[in-house]
């Protein structure tokens, strides 16, 4: 137990400054400072506001995580950090902190992928990830279907949204229905008292010729908004609960249908769902129903681990240590468009040594 790697992870890809500490697959601390309220009046994350907040919050959040975990920094086996994808300036604050911390403590540094971290976090909830695992990541920022053979080295994109993120659609519809914000939880609540079959809203990209694993929520968003407007224009009352239920059903129907199909097509018997939308009760229920019918085991971490946090970065970092993956170099940089196929950013030192030998031998 104690020889499992003790890793601190730093996440600053968007508006949350997250610092988590794990030992192997055990969560020890998950400290978060959020600048979400500072962005609210702009209707979206303002990168410069987020970056300024990360700089302010970083040292206190590291301190808090260490206290929460009850460990000493010198006992850490490595420092992991989100190297991308995300907002460039925001990522760079976290990368700078992680590099300085690792260097000062004399520990290896692991620059890791944000999306792979969202998958790996489930190890803290349900133990080691089965290999392979299919992962559905859905939030205000992501909607993708990924196949992971080995979370430290092999993550393959199966599909992703071609327009809006799923979480975005929830926010938009909640706004049109005057339900307040954020949209996810409130739609979920109203939908429970509504009829999901009351209105037949379109299922995007589900035609026979459409990309099997890609998503589209922009058309649905527009269709729901138009339906509501038409009701209002006709002077009729909008059946909020039925609209919420029918809209939500359209989203989670497509998400779960495509995820289960991908599992079947690839012969994968595990599906994990991560990202903020994973907290949606209907998504969980329908996914469970369809997974059970298809003989697939469903894994969904608790909501706090589904949204952006430092523990997920630490979880992937610990896996990098456990599997002896190459550490990153001191010149690690933030990569706002780090491909999902790169679970981490290994250093190049050893490569140079090898190539030198090849050159002169």
């Amino acid at each position, binding site marked *: 137990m104690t020889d499992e790697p003790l890793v601190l992870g730093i996440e600053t890809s968007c508006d949350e400054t997250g610092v988590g500490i794990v030992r192997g697959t055990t969560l020890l601390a998950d400290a978060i400072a959020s600048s*979400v309220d500072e962005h609210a009046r702009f209707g979206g994350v303002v990168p410069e506001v987020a970056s300024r907040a990360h700089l302010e919050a970083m*040292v206190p959040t590291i301190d808090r995580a260490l206290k929460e975990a009850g460990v000493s920094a010198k006992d850490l086996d490595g420092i992991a950090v989100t190297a991308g994808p995300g907002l460039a300036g925001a990522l760079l604050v976290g990368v700078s902190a992680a590099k300085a911390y690792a260097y000062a403590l004399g520990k290896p540094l692991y620059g890791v992928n944000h999306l792979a971290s969202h998958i790996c976090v489930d190890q803290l909830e349900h133990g080691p990830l089965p290999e392979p695992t299919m992962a559905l990541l859905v939030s205000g920022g992501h909607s993708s279907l990924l196949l992971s053979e080995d979370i430290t080295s092999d993550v393959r994109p199966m599909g992703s949204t071609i327009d809006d993120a799923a979480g975005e659609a929830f926010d938009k519809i909640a706004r049109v229905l005057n339900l307040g914000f954020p949209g996810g939880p409130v739609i979920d609540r109203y939908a429970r008292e509504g009829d999901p079959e009351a209105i037949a809203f379109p299922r995007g990209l589900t035609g026979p010729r459409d990309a099997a694993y890609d998503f589209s929520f922009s058309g649905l968003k527009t269709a729901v908004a138009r339906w509501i407007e038409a009701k209002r224009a006709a002077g009729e009352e909008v059946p909020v609960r039925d609209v919420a239920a029918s809209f939500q059903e359209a989203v989670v129907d497509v998400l779960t249908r495509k995820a289960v199909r991908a599992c079947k097509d690839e012969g994968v018997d595990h599906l994990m769902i991560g990202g903020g939308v994973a907290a949606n009760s209907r998504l969980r229920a329908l996914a469970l129903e369809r997974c059970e019918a298809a003989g697939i085991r469903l894994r969904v971490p608790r909501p706090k681990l589904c949204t952006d946090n430092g523990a997920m970065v630490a979880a992937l970092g610990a896996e990098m240590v456990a599997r002896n993956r190459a550490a990153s170099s001191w010149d690690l940089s933030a990569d706002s468009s780090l491909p999902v196929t790169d679970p981490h950013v290994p250093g190049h030192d050893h490569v140079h040594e090898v190539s030198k030998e090849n050159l002169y031998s």
Partner: protein
Amino acid sequence: MLLLALDTATPAVTVALHDGTDVIASSSQVDARRHGELLLPAVDRVLAEAGLKLEAVTGVVVGTGPGPYTGLRVGLMTADTFGLALGVPVYGLCTLDGLAYAADIEKGPFVVATDARRKEVYWATYADSRTRLTGPAVDRPADIAEQVAGLPAVGAGALLYPDTFPSAHEPEHVSAAALAALAAEKLAAGEELPAPRPLYLRRPDAQVPKNYKVVTPK
């Protein structure tokens, strides 16, 4: 005393070690787009050159700008985190003060100006190399031409706008060596150095990227 000084508020990524008497090692690279990549290797190199380990450092000095934000934060975040890990104090010094010190002008007044992009400069005026009179501020060169008329000027911002700063000269960029020497001098004189807080001077641009996470009021 062993001070580690660093500054990333200008296109220069600059690092120096100062033992209280002299600068014992330093490095400066000019590359405005790679502060994040260059800083840590530079710290490592400077320590190796001096034959010392980071644990030997008794204080960290960091340029607090003003300067382009993304680069500026690399230095500040690095300094803050070194302070946390080593348990040593982190001191902030205005980057323009470092340039003024390096200019080594005994009788002013003179101007220090750096490039603030968007056709503006970060600038301050000095009575001598150790005494700031005004600023720092951010302005368009043409708008301050009257205030700086006839004054000698240093820094890349002055060199960039000869119409406003006809007598601009070197140094172009700040050096951590100058910053370290200035800090050592102030500490020896018993002066208290400011906390490492960024001098942004401008409000953040409220630009929300398209197709990114939506954040809305609760």
